[in-house]
């Protein structure tokens, strides 16, 4: 029990810088949420339950477009699909005997950053470490979103306009450094920019929601890239156990 307590507080400690960053970025996400017509409570709930910058941005574009619920499910599946991979990777970090409840709870808490600090722990992951980081970072993200919605109403237009690019700055921070190292990723980013721009200029596609365009373009680009440039196996650490277990 004491070991779990230590792990929890280590998680809280490592989660503090994440929480601070989240608070600032969630604020600008709140501005997008406000444009989509969400109340502060709705923004808080969305961030508490979905907690993904790109995923929530896409979520708000679906709401803005008044698109069908099925489209929401599809868009979230596409924008958050990286968590599927992170969840796969984290499953290797767990002791095989880890109970289902812990697997569920740690999985629910996955974000880019929480995943990053959890996967880099030495040895097996103690779920309580992740809980500590989630405990401090998730409320910061959710409250930040709600405050962004509230303050978006009182901030001058010039400030709102400036903050409207913060999220895109974050996205650049995620996609540009890997583009430098990996030419295929760089090509994907450039193709994404170009195709997205061209599609936005096609008047016949004006009726298609932005989120649907994003999803379809993503599937096409990623599918082609995966077909022509499959990731070499050597990039992955050796793995001997390929059993799949129904829990």
């Amino acid at each position, binding site marked *: 029990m004491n070991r779990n307590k230590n792990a929890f507080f280590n998680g809280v400690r490592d989660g503090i810088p994440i929480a601070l960053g989240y608070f*600032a970025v969630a604020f600008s996400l709140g501005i997008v949420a406000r444009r989509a017509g969400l109340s502060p409570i*709705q923004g808080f*709930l969305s961030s508490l*339950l*979905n907690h993904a910058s*790109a*995923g929530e941005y896409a*979520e708000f574009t679906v*709401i803005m477009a008044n*698109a069908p*619920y099925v489209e*929401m499910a599809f868009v*979230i599946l596409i*924008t*958050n*699909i*990286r*968590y*599927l991979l992170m*969840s*796969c990777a984290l*499953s*290797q970090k767990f002791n095989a005997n880890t109970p289902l409840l812990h697997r569920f709870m740690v*999985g*629910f808490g996955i974000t880019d950053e929480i995943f990053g600090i959890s996967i880099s722990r030495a040895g097996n992951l103690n779920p309580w470490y992740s809980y500590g980081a989630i405990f401090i970072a998730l409320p910061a993200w959710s409250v930040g979103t709600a405050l962004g919605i509230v303050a978006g109403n009182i901030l001058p237009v*010039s400030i709102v*306009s*400036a*903050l409207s*690019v*913060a*999220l*895109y*700055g*974050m*996205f*650049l*921070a995620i*996609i540009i*450094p*890997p583009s430098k190292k990996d030419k295929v990723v760089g090509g994907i980013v*450039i*193709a*994404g*920019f170009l195709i*997205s721009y061209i599609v936005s200029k096609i008047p016949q596609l004006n009726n298609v929601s932005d989120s649907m*365009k994003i999803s379809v373009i*993503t599937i096409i680009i*990623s599918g082609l*890239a*995966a*077909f022509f440039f*499959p*990731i070499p*196996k050597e990039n992955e650490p050796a*793995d001997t*156990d390929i059993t*799949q*277990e129904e*829990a």
Partner: protein
Amino acid sequence: MTHNIYLYILVAALVSTLIRVIPLTLIKGKIQNPFLRSFLYYVPYATLAVMTFPAIITAPQLPIAGILALIVGVVAAWHGMNMMGIAALCCVVVFFIENVAVNFF
């Protein structure tokens, strides 16, 4: 037809929770299919690129402010600046262009 925002949030939460939880609860080995593995690896880069452009240009009041924010953001990211720094820098660029630089032209 107008949709309920709470239902939208519920659907989004449900799907993202399933995505996060299913592999962790069911799979104990790595994905072996090379196409699927590669596809999942590339998806975040493609989707974030598509979402960033041209939206970064249409989001601010002046398109030129968005274009410059994009250029500055790419250069900063290329040189390894951290995420929060880049986000802040892009905001400063837009604010500067729209409120200071514009008065000189």
